[in-house]
């Protein structure tokens, strides 16, 4: 175990890995800062660069982007009142009023320190919980893996924006789309409608590029924007000792909430930040000043936001099921660079696991250093005009989908799913479950087949094995819970 840590650290500090991590962290800050470019989109755009990289280097780059984009979101939240990432929405509540008071620099410094602390504290969950959970999951058989895939899918569908029914439809559409082409079990062609090109099926990468990146470009075509106008100036970036002291408790509180929420699948940063913010406001002595521009409000959100990152990696690493859209994309990214997240990852590729563990801390320090620089240059980052950025993203999407198998078919799929993703968004149908369905589909089908082979075609096997039953019940409970809460909301609105 100690050996793995040492090896991991050595890998992280190899010049090439380190350089790529720096690139990832820098890209993350920019991606996070720019409204309209989410962390998921950032990871997708980064993928073509990683096709021929060592999986450890690629993982460091992706983790760097993921963590620092969470901080980057606060830059636009503070300066523009538009959160760069959805989870930074709560940061704007106090961040923007602070910027109006001329304290944008201090607000961003507090956000950075809180992000750093949140990220560090979240490593506890990642490092201690994921191996334990992975060890437990080693007992899983095919029936459990099938139920796990269904559980993951329903969890993401039940919390996705829009509504549960559309989320589920989106997820099952994904499962259906992954069946098109050559069948993994029997090797025969199916669902191609006699169209030759469809035998290549729908790989999840072009679908992901289309639905997350191209669709966003098309959406921006509808609402074209010139460069953002930034009114506040960044001057005083250093916090006084008093201010540091003030934000300490909010940071610890936010981190705690973030870690707990992060570990629970299908929750994510937005829930964690709003929960932490509201709870702190209730009992903090400055609670009545929240919303008018206090550093505590920024600190609690940003620490919660970044504390989610380590927690959210736990189910992804140890079980292979993602908690939200970003980790769903990360699951795809990991498969693409040759890794299969899940309990076997700890047995088969401990080098990768421990590189990420060791690298997690390095990423936080890099984020602290580069984040500080980015505060100074923040207004310049936001000056990148969307009308130039979006077409470039389109070309990067084309290169990314082409590079997968050197085939224009994948580019066509990506561009087509750009339009499909746009239409889905207009219909208020969440996209993440569909992408997750395509990723998890072959895995669900393969395991269901194995379970049936073992049980000699007993379809009830998935209910007879206790862990499998618990997972299916949990999936059912998440649907029921979501139905009840939406019913209550509708009733409240009606009243």
């Amino acid at each position, binding site marked *: 175990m100690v050996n793995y840590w040492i090896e991991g650290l050595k890998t992280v500090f190899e010049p090439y890995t380190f350089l790529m991590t720096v690139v990832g962290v820098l890209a993350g800050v920019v991606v996070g800062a720019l409204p309209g470019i989410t962390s998921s989109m950032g990871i997708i755009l980064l993928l*073509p*660069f990683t*096709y*021929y990289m060592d999986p450890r280097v690629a993982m460091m780059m992706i983790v760097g982007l993921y963590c620092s984009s969470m901080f980057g979101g606060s830059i636009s939240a503070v300066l523009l009142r538009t959160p760069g990432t959805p989870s930074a929405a709560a940061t704007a509540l106090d961040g923007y009023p602070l910027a109006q008071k001329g304290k944008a620099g201090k607000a961003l410094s507090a956000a950075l320190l809180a992000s750093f602390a949140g990220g560090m504290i979240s490593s506890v969950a990642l490092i201690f919980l994921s191996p334990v959970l992975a060890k437990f999951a080693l007992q899983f058989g095919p029936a459990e893996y099938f139920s796990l895939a269904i559980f993951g899918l329903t969890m993401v569908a039940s919390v996705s924006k829009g509504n549960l*029914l*559309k989320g*589920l*439809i989106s997820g*099952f*559409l994904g*499962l*259906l789309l992954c*069946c098109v082409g050559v*069948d993994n*079990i*029997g090797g*025969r062609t*199916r*669902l*191609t*409608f006699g169209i030759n090109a469809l035998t290549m099926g729908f790989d999840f990468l072009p679908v992901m590029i289309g639905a997350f990146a191209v669709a966003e470009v*098309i959406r*921006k*075509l*509808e609402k*074209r924007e*010139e460069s953002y106008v930034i009114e506040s100036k960044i001057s005083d970036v250093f916090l006084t000792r008093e201010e540091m002291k003030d934000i300490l408790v909010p940071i610890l509180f936010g981190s705690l909430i973030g870690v707990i929420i992060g570990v629970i699948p299908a929750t994510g940063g937005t829930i964690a930040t709003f929960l932490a913010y509201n709870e702190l406001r209730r009992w903090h002595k400055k609670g009545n000043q929240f919303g008018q521009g206090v550093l505590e409000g920024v600190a609690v959100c940003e620490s919660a936001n970044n504390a989610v990152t380590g927690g959210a990696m736990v189910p992804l690493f140890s079980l292979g099921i993602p908690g939200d859209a970003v980790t769903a994309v990360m699951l795809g990214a990991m498969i693409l660079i040759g890794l299969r997240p899940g309990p076997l990852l700890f047995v088969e590729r401990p080098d990768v696991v421990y590189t990420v563990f060791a690298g997690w801390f390095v990423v936080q320090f890099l984020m602290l250093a580069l984040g500080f620089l980015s505060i100074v240059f923040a207004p310049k980052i936001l000056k990148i005009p*969307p*009308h*130039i950025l*979006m*077409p*470039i993203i*389109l*070309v*990067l999407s*084309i*290169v990314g989908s*082409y*590079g997968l198998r*050197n085939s*224009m078919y994948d*580019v*066509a799929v990506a*561009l087509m799913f750009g*339009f499909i993703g746009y239409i889905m968004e*207009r*219909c*208020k*149908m969440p996209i993440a479950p569909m992408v997750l369905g395509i990723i998890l589909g072959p895995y*669900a*089908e393969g395991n*269901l*087949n*194995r379970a*049936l*082979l073992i049980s*000699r*075609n007993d379809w009830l096997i998935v209910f007879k094995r206790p862990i499998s039953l618990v997972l299916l019940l949990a999936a059912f409970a998440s649907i029921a819970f979501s139905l009840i809460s939406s019913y209550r909301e509708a009733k409240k609105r009606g009243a």
Partner: protein
Amino acid sequence: MIPASPRLRGGLSGGNLMTGDLILGIVIVAIAILFYSQTLGIKPAPIGLSSADFPRLITVVLMILGGLLILLSLLKIKRAKGGEKKRKIVEKGTLWRFIVLFVMFVLYIAFVDDLGFILTTIPFLFVALSLFSLKNIKNLIQNVIISVVVTLAIYFVFHKIFQVILPTFSL
């Protein structure tokens, strides 16, 4: 009363979320039936899953979910009694930009293998930039420069540094 169906007059207008849901539900059920019909010729496996079993399971669930969506939207429409106002789905100008972008996608895919990445991406990027620009004429030269520089830069970075093979022009 069911509000007017989407039609083309000054852009796509008419329709609201309820009728949208109704159409969506019908489309989902239709897709599910279409895909289910594709599995009919596949022989069952003696043990384990045949190629048809998993897609059948999924399509049946989709039919149920789509049916539920239809049912719920019909209930909502009945309750609202056409009270919800019509709203424009897409503005006319945006619709044109969508069509141009779609045509560019088709042309790009059709020509990139023969003409290569650079020769097709430069005009593609130029048109895309023009679609996004608010002041078309003023930005013309800027857009030309950006299209050329960005295309060459992307080609160099991916082709030369990251070894991603991109289509090249050959006679």
